[in-house]
């Protein structure tokens, strides 16, 4: 091996040290190694041993930047770009999943508020028609269902404001019977989707503890709550400014907030359950269905929770 002693080019910042700083050539780079500064291929450049710490370095002939040999050779600019793109893609997938959950929560809660307020709307229309002096006038208002007794009949809001909504709800059969019963199917679907979302989320967000994942799962629900709130406020404002309104619209305003809140609650309850059973369920599935040679590739499911990863050697169940 050829050994030469070089005096390093004078760095601008430490001229006093330069005199004592010598570099000894120990070898030559024969593989691919790109300069970290300008990307120039350092093949053929000397490997130098610097005198202070005896570190092995190479110096780029183009830009003069020193590359320590202990570092991994960089893979080129596109490797880092692809890695960034993959990370950004993963983030987009997570955010898209959260957005889809928000939209599902919002859509189903809207359906629940429509369906859940139908019976109360019918009741309000019939109560209004049964009120002496009020019923006949409602038949003169144009709109869908004129002449028929249903929730689309227009109701004089002065009459409604003088009434107690809670009393009417009680007389109609109570919230559970008149509003909750028709929408339990929607709530079960929210619970099931929330459960699936929680399971997938707890596995996708492995860096997060269960408590943190449960808090993060609030994000899609909060987005849905924001949209629901704006819709409910708009409905209430419209109702406050109107003189006549359909019985269904009144019922939606009276029951909408609680139907929205209960829908969100079911969704989040499913998510919480999913977060807590997600990783154990995934580990059980992996242990049950995957041969050991594949199991080791999914060891991160164990490591994330501080558990010993599954054995890679052939193990038999049970």
């Amino acid at each position, binding site marked *: 091996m050829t050994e030469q002693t070089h005096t390093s080019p004078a760095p601008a910042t430490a001229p006093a040290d330069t005199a004592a700083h010598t570099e000894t050539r120990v070898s030559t780079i024969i593989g691919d190694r790109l300069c970290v500064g300008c990307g120039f291929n350092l093949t053929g450049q000397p490997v130098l041993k610097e005198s202070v710490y005896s570190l092995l370095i190479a110096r780029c002939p183009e830009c003069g930047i020193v590359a320590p040999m202990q570092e991994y050779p960089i893979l080129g600019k596109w490797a880092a770009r692809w890695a960034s793109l993959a990370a950004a893609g993963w983030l987009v997938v997570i955010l898209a999943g959260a957005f889809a959950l928000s939209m599902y929560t919002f859509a189903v809660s809207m359906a629940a508020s429509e369906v859940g307020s139908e019976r109360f709307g019918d009741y309000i229309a019939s109560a209004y028609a049964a009120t002496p002096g009020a019923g006949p006038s409602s038949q003169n208002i144009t709109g869908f269902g004129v002449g028929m007794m249903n929730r689309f009949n227009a109701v004089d809001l002065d009459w409604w404001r003088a009434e107690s909504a809670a009393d009417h709800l009680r007389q109609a059969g109570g919230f559970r019977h008149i509003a909750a*019963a028709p929408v339990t199917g929607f709530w079960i679907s929210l619970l099931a989707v929330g459960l699936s979302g929680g399971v997938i989320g707890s596995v996708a967000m492995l860096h997060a503890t269960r408590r943190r994942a449960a808090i993060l799962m609030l994000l899609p629900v909060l987005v849905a709550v924001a949209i629901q709130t704006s819709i409910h406020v708009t409905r209430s404002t419209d109702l406050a400014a109107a003189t006549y309104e359909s019985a269904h619209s009144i019922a939606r305003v009276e029951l909408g907030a609680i139907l929205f809140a209960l829908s969100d609650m079911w969704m989040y309850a499913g998510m919480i359950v999913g977060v807590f059973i997600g990783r154990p369920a995934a580990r059980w599935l992996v242990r049950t*269905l995957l041969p050991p040679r*594949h199991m080791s590739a999914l060891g991160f499911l164990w490591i994330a929770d501080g558990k010993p990863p599954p054995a890679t050697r052939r193990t038999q169940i049970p």
Partner: protein
Amino acid sequence: MPISHICLNCGVDLARVRSTPHPTLAINAVVCPECGVAAVRRKHPLIRDSRRFLRARRAIWTLVGQFTLLAGFLTFAAAIAHATARWTYDEQVSLRALALAAVAAEPSGSRRVDSEAPYVLIFFAVASVAAGIWLGIGLPHWRVITRPPAYAAALALAALTPVLAWAFFVVPVHAIAGRTYHYTGPTASGWLTVAAVLLASFVISTLTLPIGIGMQRMLDAHRRSRRRRAISKTRIARSGG
């Protein structure tokens, strides 16, 4: 051109030095021709992570495939069992008559059953055989003796799923609404039919399990011999002859 790999002891670039298998450890080592210090090839974190991702992706797809197969076999067997119970109830024929009609085209009292039964029987037998082979090939990490009971338990759970869904979802929903939802599932004799069909599926699968185990061993032997051939080919190529 290979990626640069500098010996941290003497600075020689080991990029063109061939790695050799360690005599006792299952690793490949690169010995520096200048100083004799051994090192292993260091993979860049990006390359290492991407390979780890590919392995995990393969494992995830295998898991999805295994789960789909298991769910498919169980759902098919349970669906056939419930459909058979429904047929025997609707057409007022015994399971034995239905089976005879399927095998020997013997009149069972219903033209609809007669025309469909042979095809259903063929699908049922093929699915049960496939399930047995899958039990042999797909679950090599399970003891042979525990695979049939576990599959039997899974079959029973699959058959009971409609009843469990009725009990835990449909009934509570209707109870909240103040209504009663009557049971519409199989009767006691219907459950006997379900059990008989599932038992037939289980027996066929258990009988074909050894075929699956044999195929799994053949696949393992093939994989090992392919690996051995690849290693010896690499060694011959490295030794230059």
